[in-house]
């Protein structure tokens, strides 16, 4: 059964676009969200972090610190982590993923546990109708992470969101995805990816 959480179309889009931006590299990022009274998490946004040397400490510290500060300004906090591994057949969390998400859990102020999303490399394709992500929740002692199945309604917009993002990738929108590494290479690049956020929100609301 696992944890209760929902994934917004904006958050989902950025995770997939990040993975598509660097298909030959491992990428990672954090998820921003909030918890309701019942402890269910709403994953609202994703901030892409790195596409090189995912586990190095200094820039990770800088990034997490800035993202936490930003999150507070929009009444959110870092409540999850995502990673896409380099190899097509490797979609399991590794030591780096566990270390980072443990750090995230330490800093969370909600009673719920963080969500760990791994990109399911095999399922990343333009015509796939399955969510190309695997969700993990911590077990009771928090020592291990267990995969949980997606439920209907967990991904905002469901199939329509999958199709929307496939469309974005077809039109090469993933080439515009900015992560913290990109920002560190060029300070003018914005890791908030406001244009992608706008594009996805627009497409999502025009559906309703």
């Amino acid at each position, binding site marked *: 059964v696992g944890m209760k959480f929902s994934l917004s179309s904006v958050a989902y889009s950025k995770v997939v676009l990040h993975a598509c931006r660097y298909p030959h590299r491992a990428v990672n990022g954090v998820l921003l969200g909030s918890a309701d009274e019942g402890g269910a998490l709403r994953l609202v946004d994703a901030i892409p972090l790195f596409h090189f040397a995912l586990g190095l400490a200094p820039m990770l510290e800088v990034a997490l610190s800035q993202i936490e500060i*930003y999150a507070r300004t929009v009444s959110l906090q870092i409540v999850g982590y995502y990673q896409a591994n380099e190899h097509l057949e*490797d979609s399991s969390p590794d030591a780096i993923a566990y270390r980072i998400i443990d750090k995230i859990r330490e800093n969370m102020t909600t009673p719920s546990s963080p969500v760990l999303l791994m990109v399911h490399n095999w399922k990343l394709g333009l015509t796939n109708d399955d969510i190309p992500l695997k969700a993990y929740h911590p077990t009771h002692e928090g020592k291990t992470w267990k995969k949980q199945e997606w439920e209907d309604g967990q991904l905002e917009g469901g199939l329509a969101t999958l199709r929307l993002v496939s469309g974005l990738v077809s039109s090469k929108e993933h080439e515009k995805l900015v992560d913290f590494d990109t920002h560190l290479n060029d300070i003018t690049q914005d890791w908030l990816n406001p244009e992608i956020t706008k594009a996805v929100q627009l497409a999502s609301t025009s559906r309703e």
Partner: protein
Amino acid sequence: MSWESVRDELRLLRTTGCRESEKVLRLGKTLLSGNVSKLGDEMWTLYEQLFIAALDCGRQLEAESYVVSLETQFPDSVRVKTLRGMMMEAEERYEDATAWYDFLLESETTNAPIRKRKITMLITQRKFLDAIKELTEYLESFMSDQEAWLQLSELHMKQMDYKRAAFCVEELLLVDTHNHLFHQHYAELLYTMGGTDNLDMSRKYFAQSLKMNSNNLRALYGFHLACISLPKKKDRDTEKWADWAEQQLLQKYKALGDHNKVAIVQEMLRTIRQSQ
């Protein structure tokens, strides 16, 4: 984009070795649809570049057409025969590719690219420890191969063996002493390893990197972090240095004209100070 600028961009991608295969194929299509004879002999280098990009994008048929043209033009070329090996790799025929490369190596014992293809196959098959062993051995003969040192460093980082990764970057620093990126990367590894000695070394390497390139944002952030994390000592005025780094950072962000980001960075600098 003019034909010349497309050609120039493809040249730049070749020399920098940036992996932007979709882009390469798009640009290549433009170039080839124009007057190909203008390229002269460069056409063959272009074919090689497009071959690799096509393999990268899973376009086997397109790749096949390029390698066949190259084989027809250069029937005895080992370089082209290596490309044929890459085709086998892309088809996941690793045993065939290994046999092919071993065969080529019989008459080309010191051929570095072929040896590296064999190592790449180990990485593809996730045989990381074997890859590390082979790559380490390769580097004993080819000590100045920067790409190989970087790859080995990455393999160690994946295993979270930062000490060995750092050793690889030390070798890179010997080969290319004025590279600000290597200094910064070395500093990041030292910082990650932790401990006062490593932190102090990382501070020095971040500082060196900044001296070589004052625009290296990672080095600036890293220098600041290292200074803050170090206990103040008689000959180590870390507080003054941290102040300087903060000023530099704020200056850069203010120049952006993005008030939100300035506020975030300002708050981050304040928070980091307080936590020490």
